[in-house]
Structure formats: structure tokens, C-alpha cells
């Protein structure tokens, strides 16, 4: 059961500001989906390994060679705010 407090907490964890008056609406919608997820409990998964990846691939390695990459100008070309060729972020502390 997801409470409005849970929604607020998930919003904080995922950096998604949720308006106070919308908390209840989200809680209702999320709970109906979560109830549906509850049917997974019916499945006996004793001894079943999880599938993270459908193909049996292990780590893929390549030679550590220098190749071309984006220029600094291109890399920051989409940034809404920049300064001296850097991304400009708000203060953190």
C-alpha cells in the first residue's frame, strides 16, 4: 500500500517535485498498478534464477585505444546554461 507520504518520498528519491494536491491522485493510481503486480506472488519461483539479460553474454572487452570523441564545443552545444566552456549547474551546498 503506497501512502501519500510514500509518493512524496519516491518523488524526493527520483528528484521529481510532486505538488501537494496531486499526492493523493498519484497514490490511488500507483496502488491500483501495485495491486496488479501482487499477482506475481502466486508464482512459485523457488530455485529459479533471475534473468537480468536474455542472452548469455559475459563482459565484452575492447582494446584500450584512443579514438575520436566529441569536441568540447559539441559536447556542451545542447546545454541551456554554460560558462567558460563548461556546463553551469546550480550550487550544490
Amino acid at each position: 500500500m503506497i501512502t501519500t507520504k510514500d509518493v512524496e518520498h519516491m518523488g524526493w528519491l527520483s528528484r521529481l517535485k510532486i505538488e501537494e494536491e496531486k499526492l493523493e491522485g498519484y497514490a490511488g493510481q500507483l496502488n491500483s498498478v501495485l495491486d496488479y503486480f501482487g499477482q506475481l506472488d502466486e508464482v512459485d519461483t523457488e530455485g529459479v534464477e533471475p534473468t537480468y539479460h536474455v542472452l548469455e553474454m559475459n563482459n565484452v572487452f575492447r582494446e584500450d585505444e584512443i579514438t575520436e570523441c566529441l569536441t568540447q564545443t559539441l559536447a556542451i552545444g545542447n546545454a541551456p546554461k554554460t560558462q567558460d566552456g563548461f556546463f553551469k549547474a546550480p550550487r550544490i551546498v
Partner: protein
Amino acid sequence: MHLKPRTAFSRPPGSYEVNVLITISRTIKAINDSSAVEVVEQCLERIENSTYNAIIKVTRDEAIKATRKLNGGPLAGVPIAIKDNISTKGMETTCGSRILSGYVPPYDAHVIERLKAAGAIIVGKANMDEFAMGTSTETSYYGPTLNPWDPECVPGGSSGGSAATVAAGEVPLALGSDTGGSVRCPASYCGVVGLKPTYGVISRYGLISYANSLEQIGPIASNVEDMTLLFNVIAGHDPRDSTSLPGEKNYTKALVNDVKGLKIGVPKEYFGEGTDPAVERSVWEAVHTLESLGASWKEVEMPHTKYALAAYYVIAMSEASSNLARFDGMRYGLRLEKDHDWHTTYSEIRAAGFGEEVKRRILLGTYALSAGYMDKYYLKALKVRTLVKQDFERALKDNDVLIAPTMPAPAFKLGEKISDPLTLYLADVNTVPINLAGVPSISLPCGFSDGLPIGLQIMGRHFDEETIIRTAYTFEQNTDFHTREVA
């Protein structure tokens, strides 16, 4: 040779010739008869005059420029629409979201590099559900796409723009992406052909991730041959995607009109409650058509199908909550005028930039991955995924392909399901198991119900696209659903 959707609602009469360029072979003939520039120009006009909102960004200047510089290739001068979550260098790529409005990728996706090398001409970016999260293309920030067969209906999703523009006869080819049915669902609803390849066959480099362990880029066209020609161009190894598999194949060799000796499995779980009787009838008729051509069939059991939908949504939402964390407004995309501290700024940008469905999935995905719930939801879903995958392995041990409806019912009306997320999710019941298992699957038209197309789904073994292409091609060559006109 082509689909002719009903025309009463949209086309200014006499403004262009309908359907002349809808296949690759017709397009190439038209190029030889006139010129590539003329053909591309006509295609751009069709898109610009369209009322379906299938293309949200027409790339006119780039298209004309590229056509003037053509240098051969198997798709030389053939127009194509690209789903808006596939990065196109110098062309705005938004994922149907406000948060990426104005974003212009500085590089091409692997599939775009391949298309350009083959001479294909990108004429526009196709509408989609925001971040590919949806079954109806109604969650796009740029407005819904309409179904050309009935503009009161949805085109399916999330690659609704890609399928609708092909169905409308605007463009012969399009690329979509399929995370839980997002190529096959709109192909089914719009009466065109779409393929979800085996996971790893097409590089995801440049595809903006939603749920990376499930998704593949997929080709869409008006017939099996064109879909295969497009697939052949875009499939192949790319070292920049660590899940991309080595090797190249020539898939066009599978375009063989022969199913003698083919063994078909029909999973009864795919005809569950809520299956439209017309859909059930059309799919069985398709099985019997293939039987009359030399194939045999038997019913098979895939007992975990029932749980695939819940497992899919848990995994997809969990992966989405992680993949979409990168949208912070610092490096690209929406940034609000006023900055506060880091966390507040970040939270406000994301609140303003993402739509409701994306927010719901991020919130639930975060919940499913959070301390105390991870084992109950995420890990459990991954175990159920193993069981779903084993269902496929068992069913495809003695059978070459599996056949079922792509969607339980034809396209629904705009606005009919969007207000209740769970109802909309339930429409994906027959498409999501395929992504969990990573197997390939095609949807192609096999009938109509009240003027709306019905999709036939043909699933195969890992890396055996050839057999499902051959089955689809044989069905198509011996039926006329892909040529059917709707009054």
C-alpha cells in the same frame, strides 16, 4: 501491392497522388522515371499536408540536401521516417517529451549511419508516446497521432507516428522501437508490417533508453519484403553497444514463398479473456491458410504468459527510473529560468519536463527498486522473466514458429483508455512476453474488423528471424490483406 487507408477525413483532394510511392520498388521506379529530388519533394509535401500528426518534425532542408548528394546504395533516394527517440545528428530529437524539446543530437545512432550509407533519405521524426511509454501515442507532448484507417482511433503505440505515416501512404519506410510491443502494436492497429528483432541484433547506440534490457529498434513498412530490405540495412554488429551481437546475415534470402513442413505452435494463452471474436477468427484463418500451404500446427501451452504483463511492467519501470535519471536539465533539454539549490532545481525541471505517465513509471520504478521492496517486486519479476523465457524455449523446441494475435482487439478510440493507466497496460498482454524472452516477432495484417486492421503475430527462436520472415512472406504472398482497400 499497397495499403489504401480511407481517405475521407484528411487528404486535400488532388493535392498529390495517393499511394504511388508507398513501396520501395515503386519509389525506385519513380526515381528512375523522374528524379530522386522530385520523389523526395513529393514525399515532403505529403507529410507537410498530413493531418494525422504522425510526423512531428519535417526535416525538409536536410532531406533535399542529402538527396542532392546521393551516391548509390540499396535504398538510394528512398524516404524514411525515424521515431523521435533515435538520435539523428543535427535534427531535433525529443522522445515526444517537453524535457528534450530543442535537443539536437551531436551524433547519429548506429542505425542512422547505416541508413545514410544505404542512401535512405530521412524526411522527418515520427511522433511517439513520451519516452516510448504507452500503447496509443496519446502521451506525446506534441499531441496524439491519429489512425489513418479511422482518425477517431489511436494508431497504437508507442511508435504510432512511424506506423501511421506508412499506413497513410506518406512514406514507404519507418523506424520504430519496441520495448513491450511498441513496433508491433502500432503495426497491428495501422495495418502495416513491423518487426521486433532478437535482442542484440540491431545496435541500440543512439537509441534513447527507456528499458534497456527489453528494447530493440524495429523496421516498419507496408509489406514484408520492404520491411526485410530495411531490416537488412540496419541489422549488424556495432562495438559501441556492448549488447550488440557479432555477425552479419543476408535476411533477404528468407523472402521465400514456401512453408512446406513448417511446424506452427498456437499458444492458447494468447487468446485470453477480452480477445475480440473477429481477431480470434482472423488469426485462426491465417493458421489454416498456412496449413493449406503445407505447414502443420498444434496448440501449445505457455503457462506463465498470464504473469508476463506484471513482470514486464515491474522491470520496465525499474529500468526507466534509472535510465531517465540523466535528464537533469544541465547538459541538454529543458532548464528553468531560475536556479535554486541543486536538488530543488533538478526536481522542478523534471516536474515541468516530464508528462504524467512518465512520472508514474519513474515513481513506481523507484518504489520497486527501493530498500525493502526490491526482492518483492524487482527480483521476483526477474525470476518470472526466466519462467516466461523457458515457456518460449519449450514451445519452440518442437515448433518452428508460434502464431497468435498481436493485439487482443483492433484499435480503440482516442481518449477511451488514457485516463486509467492499468486498463491501457492490459492491452499489451500479447506483446510483452516476447520482450521478456528476447525472441524475434513480426506483426502483419491478417484481416479487418469494422474497417480496422487486425495484426497477426509470428514469433520465432532467438536469431531465427529468417523463419518468421519466410512465414510472414508466404502468408502475404498468398493473401491480399496488405492490398485491401477500405471504403
